[in-house]
Every structure is written in C-alpha cells, then in structure tokens.
C-alpha cells in the first residue's frame, strides 16, 4: 500500500459545530459535503487532507475545525468523519430550514441586540419562504387602508 502525501488530519468538534456550511463552501475540492435528511443535517468530511490548505478551518465561524499536521501515519484513523445536527422545522410549513443550534444562537443574538425574547416574534422560527409570506401579508394588510 502506497502512502499518499498526507499532510494534515482533520478534526471536527461536533459540539462546537453550528451546522452552517461555511467549511463545505470553502473547500476547493468540495470534499466536505452535507445534506438534510430525516430531521438532521449530516456532514461528511475526509479524515485526512492533502495539501496545506486551511480554508475550511478559517471559514468556520465556531472554531469547530482543527487541522493537525501529520508526521507519522501510524496509528492514525483513516475513517471519514461524519457528524450531524438536528434541524429546525419551520413553525408554519414544517419544512426544515436550518439547524436548531443556529436558531438558538439567533434567538440569543436577537435578545442581546434588540431585546427580542424567544417567542415574542413569529418570524425567527419560520423558514425564509414563510418569512416572506408573513411579511408580504403584513404589508398587504396595512396597504388595504390605502386601496
């Protein structure tokens, strides 16, 4: 078995991962993939990566990716990485649209920036399409006075 030029091993901390797809978008080889299925967002990544690219690590907003230089190949795991995060479903259409973790972070951010406590507004728990629908109905409702 020939040993390829292995440069770094990829570690992902699933507890830190928010479930965004910055790493997947960042990878020039598109070797990090994700899909939403059965209520979860599942990520897959190789255990090792050739080259000295650090884009996935740099892109990660949550510092969940760690790259370790590989000297010895012995004792290393070659198993591809896989982790998943529960998806949040839209309150209205029940379609999943982001991860629960992202939604929780959004909720905390809104609380901190504009004092909007969880459940106070209807849109954060809705998918973008439903947000558009809600907003357009609100505006139409206002507009009926002008018609």
């Amino acid at each position: 078995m020939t040993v390829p030029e292995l440069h770094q091993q990829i570690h992902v901390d699933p507890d830190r991962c928010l479930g965004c797809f910055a790493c997947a978008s960042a990878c020039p080889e598109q070797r990090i993939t994700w899909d939403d299925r059965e209520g979860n967002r599942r990520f897959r990544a190789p255990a090792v990566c050739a080259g000295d690219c650090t884009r996935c690590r740099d892109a990660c907003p949550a510092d969940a990716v760690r790259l370790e230089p590989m000297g010895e190949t012995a004792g290393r795991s070659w198993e591809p990485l896989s982790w998943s995060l529960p998806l949040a479903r839209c309150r209205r259409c029940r379609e999943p649209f982001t991860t629960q973790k992202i939604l929780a972070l959004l909720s905390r951010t809104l609380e901190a920036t504009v004092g909007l406590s969880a459940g106070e507004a209807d849109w954060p728990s809705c998918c973008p399409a439903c947000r558009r629908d809600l907003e357009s109905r609100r505006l139409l409702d206002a507009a009926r006075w002008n018609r």
Partner: protein
Amino acid sequence: MERILVRWERCVGCRSCELACRVAHSASGDLFSAVLERPAPSRRIYVEQADKTPSPFLCRQCEDAPCVRSCPTRALAHDETTGLVAYEPARCIGCHGCVMACPFGMIQPDVREGFIAKCDRCKGRDRPACVEACPTHTLVLEKDFLDLRRKEAVRNLVQSGNPV
C-alpha cells in the same frame, strides 16, 4: 392619555406646529440652538395641503396599528396604559417596515433617536408642543375638542332657531 385632535378647518398653514415639534425633539429644546443641530431634529407632525386647505397631520395612535403589525421586533407596540403607539428605539432594527405600512404617512426615517420619527405625544410634557404652538387652536386635546364641538353644535342649533 388624551389624544391630539385636529379641527382642520381652522388651520392657516403657518407650520408653527412643525417648528415646535422639531424644537421639542431637539437636544437643546431651544429654537435658536436647535436650528444649528446636525442632524436636524425631526418633526413628527406634517402640515400638508389637503383638498386645497392646509392641515396638520399627525400619528393617530391607532388601536390596531399597521405599523405595530409590521414591526418584526416589537419596537412599536400599543401601550395599553397610555393608549399610544410607543416606539422603543433599542428594539428597532431600522427595517423601515412601519414607514411603508403606515397608511397615513406619519412615520418617517430618522437618524437621531432610533431610526424613525413618530409622534410620541411629547413624552414628559403636560401638553404636546404642537398643541401649545398652534395659534388658531386647530390642534386640541381630545377633551377640549369634544367640549368645543359640543358648544359649537349647541350654538348652531340655537342659531337655527330650531331647538329641539
């Protein structure tokens, strides 16, 4: 809190209310200093030419207000105790939804306190600045408005020589 009502037939278009409103919402509260403030203090009352007569327009503090409905962060809310549509700048994200939603055009973008300028019925003042400023008493508080209207109605009735 008493609302501000308008006896529009009395308006002479002097815009004193607009000036008084800006001064009341300036940092200094004084006309001569307020004109130097930048950005300029905003007005929340508008004198417009409507149906060939000038008239002041101001927020009606709607019970079921489109602006409140359109606000995604509840920065605008109907205050049960005061009966006013209250604006909380800290909660505002400046999305301009209320500006688009207000059917009366009474909310305008602003850059001083928060992101919109909307009548707050002069917080901390006994009588709103515009009511105090109006030289023809076009702008009156609700109770005065009703009193005046009643008296007018009685006078008209008596003058018609046809009392009930």
